[in-house]
């Protein structure tokens, strides 16, 4: 009977063709997709079938299932594209899955309202994320709004009453669970605050600092820590550095755009020789001669640091000279940035003598110094005998244009030689 039926149908339907009949395997795959929560199957399939699932799996399938079942692939790309417009995979190790989880977690943290939203919602996510999250780039952290309003009220009514602590998100819980975390970029600030500006929005409290310090200390896989634009003062800096001493894996530390002064710099100088730091950025802080000398002292005995950025600080000629002199005993530093400081010709003289000895230094930035014409001449003479420096920024440093041009040409020649 069936046969007859089929035949009749074929005869009656002129558009019918065998191609329209879906393959059983396809149907099976669709069934798998449908029941993926109940019966997760992926690894047993052939590559082409896996591809099919990646392309057709429901985007709102619970992460509980998919995070472990589905490897990096089209599925995660689709999910990312759904959530965010611009996705740059190169920032996340060319892995869509990593990108998805990292940004997902970042969004969760950035939108976390202490006091109001529950920490549970984030902690629940952690078991799914922990394998793939390697880098967290958090650009803002919100303050508890209600308290803020209360505080405003309080401010208006009872000015004398002590303010309740306005703590940000507590990282202590988070970092312990993320076993693969390598990079942490933090900014204690609020983007687009508009007219609701408050000083507290742009700084971290003492408790924030303590919790963060403990969290960072507990995270043994961390390699990169960026804590910029957070108005860190000396005491906070010292507290953080104290917990970072002897960290097993930290190689990059960025405290740019903060309020670190000489005391903080001294603490960081101590850290230099009790860690594996390769990169230290203290761009745009308030470090003066004493802090620079402390760092210089550490630098003279250090053998790991490769990049030191002290740009836009208040280092005077003495501090600059101390740092440059330290390079006589250091043979690991490759990049030095002393731009926009108050360094003057003594630094230039010292640097010119160091350039004749040192063979590791390859990039120097000194613009906006006050090197003067004589300093420029000394540097020009030193550079004429140097063959390792590839980049040497000297604009607006009071030197003669001719000297700057000459040094530039030398660096270009060195660069060409290095590229061969």
């Amino acid at each position: 009977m069936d046969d007859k039926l089929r035949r009749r149908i074929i005869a009656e339907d002129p558009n019918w063709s065998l191609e329209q009949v879906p393959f059983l395997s396809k149907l099976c795959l669709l069934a798998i997709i449908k029941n993926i929560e109940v019966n997760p199957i992926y690894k047993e399939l052939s590559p082409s079938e896996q591809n099919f699932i990646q392309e057709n799996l429901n985007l709102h399938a619970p992460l509980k299932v998919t995070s472990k079942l589905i490897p990096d692939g089209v599925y995660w790309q689709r999910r990312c594209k759904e959530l965010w417009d611009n996705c740059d995979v190169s920032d996340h190790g060319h892995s869509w899955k990593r990108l998805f989880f990292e940004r997902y977690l970042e969004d969760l943290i950035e939108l976390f309202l202490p006091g109001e939203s529950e920490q549970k919602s984030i902690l629940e996510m952690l078991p799914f994320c922990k394998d793939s999250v390697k880098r967290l780039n958090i650009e803002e952290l919100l303050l508890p709004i209600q308290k803020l309003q209360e505080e405003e009220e309080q401010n208006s009514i009872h000015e004398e009453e002590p303010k309740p602590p306005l703590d940000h998100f507590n990282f202590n819980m988070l970092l312990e669970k993320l076993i693969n975390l390598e990079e942490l970029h933090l900014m204690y600030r609020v983007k687009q605050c508009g007219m609701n500006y408050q000083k507290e929005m742009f700084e971290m409290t003492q408790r924030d600092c303590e919790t963060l310090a403990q969290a960072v200390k507990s995270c043994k896989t961390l390699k990169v820590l960026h804590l910029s634009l957070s108005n860190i003062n000396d005491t906070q800096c010292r507290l953080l550095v104290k917990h970072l001493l002897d960290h097993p894996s930290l190689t990059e530390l960025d405290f740019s755009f903060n309020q670190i002064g000489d005391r903080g710099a001294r603490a960081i100088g101590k850290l230099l020789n009790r860690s594996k730091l390769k990169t230290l950025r203290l761009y745009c802080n308030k470090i003066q001669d004493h802090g620079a000398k402390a760092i210089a002292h550490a630098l003279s005995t250090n053998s790991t640091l490769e990049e030191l950025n002290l740009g836009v600080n208040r280092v005077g000629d003495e501090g600059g000279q101390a740092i440059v002199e330290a390079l006589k005993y250091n043979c690991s530093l490759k990049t030095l940035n002393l731009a926009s400081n108050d360094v003057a010709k003594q630094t230039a003289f010292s640097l010119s003598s160091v350039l004749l000895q040192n063979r590791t230094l390859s990039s120097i930035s000194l613009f906006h110094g006050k090197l003067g014409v004589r300093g420029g001449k000394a540097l020009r003479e030193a550079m004429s005998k140097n063959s390792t420096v590839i980049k040497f920024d000297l604009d607006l440093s009071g030197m003669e244009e001719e000297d700057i041009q000459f040094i530039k040409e030398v660096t270009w020649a060195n660069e060409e030689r290095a590229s061969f």
Partner: protein
Amino acid sequence: MEKAAESPRKKTTKSPKKPDIKEFSKQKDGGTQKKEPKKDKKLATSQKFVKLKRDLSTMETNIQAAAEAREVQCRTEIDKARKIRLELLEDHNLSSKNKLEQICNGWQTSKEKVVPQEVQAALNHQLQLFDELITEKKRVMDIIQQDLKARDESFVADLKKQTEELQLMLERMDEQDTTLTKAYREELEQWAENVQKEEETKRIEEKTAWEKCIKNLLDTEIEKLSQRQQAVEEFNTQLNDLIFETYENFNVSRNKEVAFFQAMELEIHQVASENIFMEQKLEKLTAENIKLKSEHTRTKAKVSNIKSELSKLRMNKQTAEGKEKQLMEKHLMELNHKVQDYERLQKKKIHFAIADAIKFENMWLTEEAEVKELLERALYVDSMIYEQVLRIPWVQPNLSFANPGKRWEERCTVSQISQCIQDQLDVTQVVAEESIYNESESEAEVGERSSVATPKTVKRLMELLCEEAGFLFEVKIMNLLDSLDDNERTPMKMGYLFNTLGINEKNVPKLVDFLYKYGQQCTKDCDDAEVTQPSGSTDQAETSSAPPVTPDPIDRNDVLQALKCFLDRYNQERVKWSVQSLEARDMSKEKAYWESLGNAMTAEKLKIWEITEMKLEHHHTVLSDISKLTQEIQSLQQENTELQMVHMFLQQVCLDQSFSLSPDVTQIGID
């Protein structure tokens, strides 16, 4: 104020910064400049790209530098403003403090006053002061507020400016981007063009080549086709011809064959009849054949027998050959043995010959000595006979021949000399082809030679020999000899030496001669190096006339060599000589010699001797008779005496018996 100061700074740090316009113009110039040499070669383009990229990086650094400059400027401005503000506040503080003190003082003075008007005045004054203070404060506040406003405005202006600059920078960046992309694109286009051109040219070239090839191929193909068509036509015509020919031929041959067939049939009939006859014959033949076959088989069997025998014989032959070979080998071995035996025997024979010769010589000498003794005895007896018996004076017979030792020695010396000469010849030939001696000259030569070897030289030679051969002496003998004086020692030593060396004393002069010659030869050798080889006679004359005067006749070092040489030679010589001496003995002379010895006593003498013997025998017999008779006489005389004695005794007894008979009678009976 601080907030206002901080926020623009933050803005500056956040937003991209404005670079100097100069730098932009520079970059632009760079960009336009780089457009021009675009159509240069690849090197230039690569350099151009490097420069473009460098421009990008310089732009970035410039922007950063500008931003930092701005930041620094901002910082200094803030610091300045802060300073001014602080000064202002401090001034205000001071003035307000003074005023406050004034007021306080005013309160105190007002308390002292009692008059209400005065109090009112004081109050008014105080109020005035308060007002002043407040106005002052307000003024300061105004100033600060104005400052704040100005800051705010400037911040807004800054923001606006920054946004404008941002826009500008973005534009510039876009521009640069576009220039770079344009450059890249142009480069790419150029590349594409170049590639396309190359491709086209290549394609055209290849196309033309291809067409040529195709044309050639087609031409050749067409030619081949036409040739083939022609061939086909030719073959067709040939084929037709052949068909006709073969058809005709076939017809003719068929006719012929039919005729032939008929003839053949006839023949077949005939042949059949013949066949029957032949069959009969064949039967007979087959019978015969069978016979022959049987015979053949028999002969075959025989042949096989013979063959087997032959093989057997061959086997036998082989075995025999093997045996023969073995035998041959055996015989050869035996032969070798025999040859060795023969050689041994030869040696033995020589040895025995030597021994015999020596024995013979000894025998000869002893015999001769005996004979001589006998002869002497005979002569003595003869002389006795002549002198005592015959009483004739004895004449000494001629016994010149019978000097046997001399005779022997003569013979020996002659042979020895000849031998020696021959040896000398050998020596000279071996050592240095000095000269050839004639046999006739040899005697004189020898004489001369011996004369050359004067006793002095001989002695000297002997001493040398003794010294050099000193190792042959035993220590004991040396000690014994040391006690003797020089003149006695050398002979003794020589004697011992010769004894140990086994040299006969007779050969000593020969040894001396040899040594002397050897030494001479050595010196001669040295001379020969200078003098060219002269002829034999002159050479000889030289050697004889001018004997070399040397302190030592022979070099000390050569002595042992020479001695060794001599001993070898001597031994050889002895062997030779002994053999030769046996052969070269002149038997007839010997015989004559011996006969002469035998005939030393002449027949007459013998006769005389016989007669004398006879006479003597006769005489002897007579004498013996006489002696017998005398003996008898003697015995008789003795008897007579005895008897006389007995008679006398008896007479005595008889006399005694008269006195005492018995004891005397018994005594007489015993006697």
